[in-house]
């Protein structure tokens, strides 16, 4: 993999911002269409909401724990950004360490702590319950996810994201590990507590972990959630969809196109499902997803051994 110039560290957040805004705008457009409102109004809604949040006062609550609260809020986008460091764009990434996949997973899971801290901090019951909901679900999300990541790494014989991309020159991993791909995408949405896994910030809790957030805190937390979602979805491209591989177009453009397709389809799909009941998903995750993804890992390992 080629050496990466330093300005990529500035370039990456800019690209992420564009992608995140695109995803939010698409979601808002779908919402406007479903409500029968005008498409232009839907597209501009995120901009108006951002401006509104920027001028809204921050809320304070009684007996709050401001340190954990603010740290939890800020940690969501920070975790997403640190995870994004290993995302390759056309054969280059800001960093491509030998343990890229483990790094990605480790940074992403910081969001787990972050949501709990953001829920605990302000001190009311609803936001605390929201934080606990995410913690309770975390293992059901994370274990199948780890095995999906391990499957891709096993097939490539490398924990380096660039190595996984190179290993797919003969064929995309999604073809011979579709189950791992599906599990990866499900858990990517779940780890970003996006619908239909939005119980931690659910309406039945008046906003859950985000209930007491207003102003810039709310912008950072919910915006960070979108970035986390985009980053988690974007890693599926180098892991399972061949990275920048594709005809005619240059690799970086293929990466962007594939990422956009994955992100927009997940946003579209999310609106087709109601919020998943947590107890049902936990059972489904432990009883169905985990064995199935383990079988996938076994199959891939055997294939790697006999090849």
């Amino acid at each position, binding site marked *: 993999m080629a050496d990466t110039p330093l300005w990529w560290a500035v370039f990456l957040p800019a690209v992420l911002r564009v992608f995140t805004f695109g995803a939010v705008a698409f979601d808002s457009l779908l919402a406007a269409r479903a409500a029968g409102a005008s498409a232009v109004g839907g597209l501009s809604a995120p901009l108006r909401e951002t401006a509104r949040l920027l001028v809204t006062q921050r809320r304070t609550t009684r007996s709050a*724990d401001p*340190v*954990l609260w603010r*740290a939890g809020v800020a940690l969501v986008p920070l975790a997403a950004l640190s995870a994004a460091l290993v995302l390759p764009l056309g054969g280059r990434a800001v960093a491509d*360490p*030998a*343990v890229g996949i*483990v*790094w990605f*997973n*480790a*940074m992403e*899971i*910081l969001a*787990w*702590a972050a949501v*709990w*801290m953001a829920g*605990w901090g302000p001190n009311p019951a609803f936001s605390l319950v929201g934080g*606990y909901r995410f*913690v309770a679900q*975390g*293992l059901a999300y*994370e274990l199948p996810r780890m095995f999906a990541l391990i499957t891709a790494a096993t097939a490539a014989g490398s*924990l380096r994201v660039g190595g996984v991309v190179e290993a797919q020159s003969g064929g995309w991993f999604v073809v011979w590990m579709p189950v791992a791909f599906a599990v990866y995408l499900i858990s990517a949405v779940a780890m970003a507590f996006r619908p239909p896994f939005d119980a931690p910030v659910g309406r039945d809790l008046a906003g859950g972990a985000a209930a007491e957030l207003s102003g810039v805190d709310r912008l950072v937390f919910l915006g960070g959630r979108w970035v986390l979602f985009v980053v988690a979805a974007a890693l599926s491209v180098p892991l399972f969809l061949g990275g920048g591989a594709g005809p005619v177009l240059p690799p970086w453009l293929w990466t962007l196109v594939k990422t956009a397709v994955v992100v927009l389809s997940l946003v579209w799909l999310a609106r087709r499902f109601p919020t998943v009941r*947590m*107890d*049902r998903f*936990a*059972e489904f995750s*432990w*009883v169905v997803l985990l064995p199935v993804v383990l079988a996938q890992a076994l199959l891939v390992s055997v294939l790697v051994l006999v090849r």
Partner: protein
Amino acid sequence: METVLCWVFGVLAVVSGFLVFRLDSMARVTFALLASFLFVAFEVMSLGLNYLGAVLVLMMVMEMVIMAVFMIMYMMNPAGLMPMAMYHNKAAAMSISVGTFVVLAAGVLLVDWPERVGRPPADPTGALGRELMGAQMPTMMTLGLVLFATILATVTLSTRRGRYDRFGSGLRDRPADPVPGGIGTASTGAAGTETGGRR
């Protein structure tokens, strides 16, 4: 640069470890401990052991978030929500622990360190693994399996309900769980008999 980072992480790890015993909220204490672990992980990374460092971050975040739940739940005062201290007999506890730290740290500084021979290996993680595990690898693998089997066996033996309580005598009914969402193994007290009477 690396030396500076090494020192910064080291000092921060000690400071946040000390904060565990100075803060008065269980939630803050938990995350101070997590911060201490994370700085140790960065220290490990700066030794060139990237894999171990990243795994430390991963495992410690997961572990401490789960620990936060349990530590707050089992705190002596209600739900761990009120101000608390991590230790009793403050003066003696503090002097003993600080004293132990000083003695150990002094040992590090006073001992004669051997001269370095050779160069660090290309893959320090692999070399460390071979050095630590080496001949014991089969033992450790067996141990891991035995431990895991023990956990499963303990849970299976200690649970009151089995699959017949769950799915009925023909194993064909829809699962009847006192608390939905698990896989039917967790139940306490009378809950088993209550739901058992459904069919």
